[in-house]
Each structure stands twice: as C-alpha cells, then as structure tokens.
C-alpha cells in the first residue's frame, strides 16, 4: 500500500514522462551522437565502410583553421552590433509608444508585423529591396541624391554583411520594443506625477523610475536576441549564401557547408559542438536570469 505522498510523486512522473522521453530522443540523444561523430571521419554519404575513430583530430584541425576563426569573429561582430542596435532602437520605439498621441494604437500593431513576418520572407524581401537593377533601396537613395548610381549591395564584400544586419535589425528590434513596452505600461502614473511635483528633471525621472522598471525585461530580450543572432542562418542562406568572398559566412552557415556541401560529417560535427559550447555560455546566462526572476516573483508573493 503506497502512501499518498508516494502516489503523488509517481503521478507527477507519469504525467512528465512522455514529454521528457520525446525531448530526450530528439535533442539529448542526437547531441550525444554528434559528440561521438565529432571523433570520427564519418562522411555524409555512406562510403561503404564504418566511420573510423580519429580521436581529437577534427578538433585540432578546427581550432587551427583560419577560416573557422574568421567565421567566429564575423559571427561575434554580427551578433554584438545587431543586438546593440536592436536594443537602442527597441527601447526608443518603446518609449515613443508609451507616449500619448493620435494613432498610437495603430503604431503598436504595426510594430508587431516585422516580428510576425516569416524569417524567410523577411530575407527574400530584403534581397529584393537590395536588388542591384531595380531594388527600392537603390531607387530611393538615388532619387534622394544620396548615391549617384545603382549599387550591388549584396554583391560587394564591403556592404553585404551590413545589408544582412539591416534585415536582421528591422525584423527583430520589435521583440525588444514589445517586452520593454509591457514593462513601461506597468509603471503607475502617479510615480511620475510625484517625481514631477518634487521637481525632478526628465533625465532624473528616466534614471530613477523608467530605467529600473525596464532593466529586467530588457536584459531578457537582449540575451534571447544574442542567442538567436549567434545562430543566424536563414537570412544568410537566402540573401547571400555566405558570399561574396565568404564575407557573410557566419558560424551556422560554415557548419552547414562543412556537413552538407563538402559532406564531411565528422568534421562538421566537431565544428557544431564547438559552436554549441559557445552558445552554451549564453544559454547558461539566460537560465540564471530566469531563475533570478522567478525567485524575485516568489519573494514578492510572500
């Protein structure tokens, strides 16, 4: 005869088991297999024999590969710059949407649209906007007299990565805006009133009231964005395919090519694991934040 507590305990596991088993089979197990693959010379297309064990060879090669190092730096640059700009624009637009003006509600809906647009459609849209023969970017800048002739934005190594970043920023700053705006709306108005009566300047009011209220959601948004930007693949695939001259070859694209264009599964797996480790740092950071937030909310309840 089981005690009530043991029964409850067992029920909890029965309810959890299906989800955990499916997640294990689709994530933890493949991750383990990828680690195993990374110590072999497996090919993507079966070469007849079983893959041979090569020890740390793939990793030693990866860590001394200048192309891979360039790709890491490129990805970090893309991530840091895009996310920083998304943070700034995102907060500014959130502050604007928190003001009272005519048409505010329409603008609040508009800001959702870039976020909702499918990633691939966004990439294709910007590819067409940047089209060298009839893109809107060329037409607009020429007609405003900013540039004197049509340019091939995605075809030149100097501007391709910036064009990709623009596409990423346009689509993703709304995420920051939406999360920050939600926090802004929860600040009671009388706080500002009281501060104003006390003669606090606008900057002072921002520092003392607004900023403390948005700092938590803003950091969540920025960490989420950083993780996503680090993994960037779809936009690169559609807009530039990593070109021209590898100038937009970010990590995900690098690993994808190693495994699926050059068919080197073993070495592709090693690159993938190295990339996952870099991501792991960011994910850990996000988890710490989530735990902190939860602790704060349970502390508030008691």
């Amino acid at each position: 005869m089981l005690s009530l507590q043991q029964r409850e305990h067992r029920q909890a596991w029965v309810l959890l088991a299906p989800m955990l088993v499916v997640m294990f089979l689709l994530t933890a197990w493949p991750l383990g297999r990828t680690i195993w693959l990374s110590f072999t010379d497996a090919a993507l297309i079966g070469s007849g024999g079983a893959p041979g064990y090569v020890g740390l060879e793939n990793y030693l090669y990866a860590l001394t590969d200048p192309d891979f190092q360039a790709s890491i730096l490129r990805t970090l640059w893309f991530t840091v710059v895009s996310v920083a700009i998304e943070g700034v624009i995102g907060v500014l637009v959130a502050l604007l949407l928190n003001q009272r003006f005519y048409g505010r509600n329409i603008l609040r809906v508009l800001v959702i649209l870039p976020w909702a647009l499918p990633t691939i459609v966004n990439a294709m849209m910007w590819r067409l906007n940047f089209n060298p023969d009839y893109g809107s970017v060329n037409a607009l800048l020429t007609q405003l007299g900013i540039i004197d002739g049509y340019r091939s934005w995605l075809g030149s190594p100097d501007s391709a990565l910036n064009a990709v970043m623009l596409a990423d920023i346009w689509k993703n700053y709304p995420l920051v805006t939406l999360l920050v705006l939600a926090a802004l709306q929860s600040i009671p108005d009388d706080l500002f009133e009281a501060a104003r009566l006390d003669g606090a300047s606008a900057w002072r009011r921002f520092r003392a009231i607004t900023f403390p209220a948005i700092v938590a959601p803003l950091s969540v948004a920025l960490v989420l964005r950083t993780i996503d930007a680090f993994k960037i693949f779809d936009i690169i695939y559609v807009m530039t395919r990593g070109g021209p001259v590898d100038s937009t070859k970010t990590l995900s694209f690098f690993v994808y090519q190693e495994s699926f264009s050059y068919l080197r599964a073993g070495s592709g797996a090693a690159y993938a694991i190295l990339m996952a480790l870099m991501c792991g740092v960011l994910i850990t950071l996000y988890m710490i934040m989530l735990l902190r937030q939860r602790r704060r909310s349970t502390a508030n309840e008691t």
Partner: protein
Amino acid sequence: MKRNLRTVLRYAAALLVAASILGPMLWLFLMSVSSTSDLTRVPLEWLPRQWDFSRYLRLVSLQPDEPGALFLHALWNSVLVACGATLISLLLAIPAAFSFSRYPGRDGWLFGSLAIYMVPPVAFVLPLYFVLQQVGLLNTHLGLVLVYCSLILPFLTWMLKNQFDALPRDIEQAARLDGLRFWQVLLRITLPLAKPMLGASALFGWLLAWDEFFYALLFTSNIEAQTLPVTIAGFTAGRATDDGLIAAVGILASVPPLFIAIWLQKTLVSGLASGGSKG
C-alpha cells in the same frame, strides 16, 4: 512653445517608425503587382502603370506548367506539418505542464528542456538526418512533424506551466476531496479554466513550425514534403526567375502569421518572454 516642439517631434518619430516598417513590405507587394518593365524603369516611378494581379491567379491555379502546383503543394505541406506538430506537442505538453505546476520540485527538467531547445540545430542535425534516412522518413510529413516537436514542446510546456500556475487551486482541491482522480481534475477542471490561453499558446507553437527553415531545408527534397520557406528559398536561388512571382509567394506565405500575430496581441508578450522569438 516647448510643448509644441515636443508634439511635432513625437509625430515625426511616429511617422518615421511607421514608414520604416511599412516601406519594405509595401515594396514587396508593389513588386508582386508590377510588370518587369515598370520595375526596371530609372528613375523608378514606384506605383505601377498597370496593376497586374495575374501572378496571384497563376499561384492558385493547378494548370500544368504553372507555378501554382509547386506553391499549393508547399502550402499544404506547411499547414499539415505545422498543425500535426502543434497537436502532438499539445498532447504531450499539457500533462507535463500540469505536473510541473501542481507537483513542484522537478523544475530542473523544465529548465533543462528549455536550455537544450536553444542549442543551435546544427548540433542535432546530423544524427537526426541519419536516423530519418534509416527509417525512411526523409522527405515525409511525419519526419518533419516529429522533429518539430523538439522545437514546440519545451516552449509550449513552459508557457502552459506559467498559465496553470496562475489558476486558482481551491476548486481542484475540493474536487480531489470528492474523489476525482488527478487526470479527471486536469480534464474536467483545469483545462476548461485554461482554455482561452491554451489556444493562444497553441497558435504560438504553430507559428514556430510555420517559420522553421533549417530542418525543413535538410530533411525534405521535393514537393512531397517541402514547406513554404524551403520553396521560397528555392525560388530565390534560381537565376532567371520572375522576381515578382517570388514576391507574390512571400506575400501569401505571410498572411496567416500576420493575422495570427495581430490576433494574439494581448498574449504576445508572455510568449516572447519565454523564448518564442522566431529569430
């Protein structure tokens, strides 16, 4: 005076934001209804001389030699895979979220699932590819549905758990005292209470599947199972294609998510905060 200036600046900023959001999207639409000769005119006149909706008609026609066959297949695959993956994920996520919420103490598993969901897909893709190949599920709806569960499940469990946490417990406790089993409590009391939020979370999961590209690109190879994003990317890879047609496909593929997002406005923020960022 100072006040007027602030108002003017505010409206200027609002107009700038609106224009920067709508501009690129309007251009996509204009491309889909303009002739090539209108588009290549320099300086560009922006509005087409002749509004031409024929591309949309070609996309929804099943005539041979028309792009419609390709598009409609992809649309069907996308709908089927997104709905299938969402349904299976719901069935697994509801009991799991209920357990996390009502029997505390296993949060490590929840955080673990959420963490692994953020690991780059390149770290899973090779073994999944080999397994799908071995069991003959490459280029099938079922193969994609299964893989997509790994994206939707952790996210959905997390969102549902937060919703269950917010529900009152006293009715449930009373029902338990009346002798209802725990799964009866879940089905008869908790779920009806959580219903409005359940739909929103499911739609969120659906959007994640609708948007996914990487796995779909690698696990499908032709119209049998190719989803819309893969078809669109395939179109853009072609050299001598009609860009206006690609734009039209893009517009059509964006209609469902745009409507869902506007409809979800209220619950959007909680979903975003739990990592449903569709980056």
